């Protein structure tokens, strides 16, 4: 195939598209969607965001088993999540990935991973990926932290250095959880880091 500018000129009639963006994530101040939707927890019980909520707030973190970025952060996720529970902040980790795309993201591996990491909180399956979709989540790991009134006060990364915990300068999520537990404002409400794109399950036909 060899294209020249002259071959392409007719396409100039087609307007340049607006910058594409996938579903926008929840805005700061928004309430958690699909709070009552039940998910299967690694312990075998059903849970929901509502049932995981704490008196001081709720941390929802989308994660999975296969992603190297999740693996780099997973011990920190466990530590932050377990500490959050002690501070009255409820925690639920949610795996939205389709295990057909990533076999390592299957339920049995979730069970083993939660045990290995010592999660004291539920690691649940978003069996339709609809919860991740409703949050506008795009990748793993991606954290959404709600305050005691249920408003989103933090969205983003665990911290600023997945590779080297000793080099972390900004422990964003840990600080946000601590602030929420104390009823204080979160200083860095939106942060970013790279991660693995969520492999959403195909929408169910009606």
């Amino acid at each position, binding site marked *: *195939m*060899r*294209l*020249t*500018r*002259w*071959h*392409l*000129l*007719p*396409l*100039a009639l*087609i307007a*340049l*598209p607006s*910058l*594409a*963006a*996938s579903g926008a*994530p929840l805005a700061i101040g928004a309430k958690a969607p699909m709070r009552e939707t039940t998910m299967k927890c690694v312990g075998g019980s059903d849970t929901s965001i509502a049932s995981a909520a704490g008196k001081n707030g709720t941390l929802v973190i989308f994660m999975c088993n296969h992603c*190297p970025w999740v693996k780099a952060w997973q011990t920190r996720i466990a530590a932050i999540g377990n500490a959050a529970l002690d501070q009255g902040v409820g925690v639920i980790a949610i795996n939205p990935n389709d295990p057909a*795309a*990533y076999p390592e993201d299957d339920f049995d591996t979730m069970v083993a991973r939660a045990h290995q990491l010592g999660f004291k909180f539920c690691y649940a399956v978003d069996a339709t990926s609809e919860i991740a979709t409703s949050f506008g989540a*795009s*990748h793993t790991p*991606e954290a959404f932290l709600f305050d005691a009134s249920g408003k989103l006060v933090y969205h983003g*990364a665990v911290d*600023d*250095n997945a*590779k080297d915990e000793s080099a972390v300068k900004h422990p964003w999520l840990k600080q946000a959880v601590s602030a929420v537990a104390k009823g204080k404002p979160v200083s860095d409400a939106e*942060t*970013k*880091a*790279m*991660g*693995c*794109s*969520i*492999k959403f399950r195909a929408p169910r036909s009606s």
Partner: protein
Amino acid sequence: MTGLSRSMLAAIAIAVALAGCGSDGSGRAEHSVPPLAASGPVVPVTADGIHQLVARPGARATIVNVWAAWCAPCREEFPALLSAARARRDAGLRLVLVSADWDDQLPAVRAFLAGHGVADTTYLKSGDEQQFINGLSPRWSGSLPATFVYDARGRLVDQWEGMADEQRFTSAVDRTLAAAHP
């Protein structure tokens, strides 16, 4: 060396010889056959560095793809990306490949690039990650793979996250090439 391994190497050599995708932003046609199983230089780059690359004269459009060697959808879309870019090189498309891997993954990065016949300069994300993401686009979440299309003046005109097929690459690039002044 067995007959099988010789034939495999021959097939790779042919693929490499047919590849030669100009990804260094120079706009030069690359006719030399790169060494077997060798990628070009992988140069650290910040978001500012990418802005300079895409604004450099000599291209009518630039496509920047941020990928990682461990990232399955990145690997899966790579052949379609290269195919679209190679077919449009003579029409003025510049390809900038940016690995988001960590430094210790460089051998895997080089092996992957070499396996796809990418012998020109490519790039490795450098510096503060959040600044890199927002520097490329505040609308990028950080999810990989991520693709950005720039016009001849280095203005961002399209972007998306996640795996794309060749149609997605070609439609975005062809619109940008067509909109460029002759």
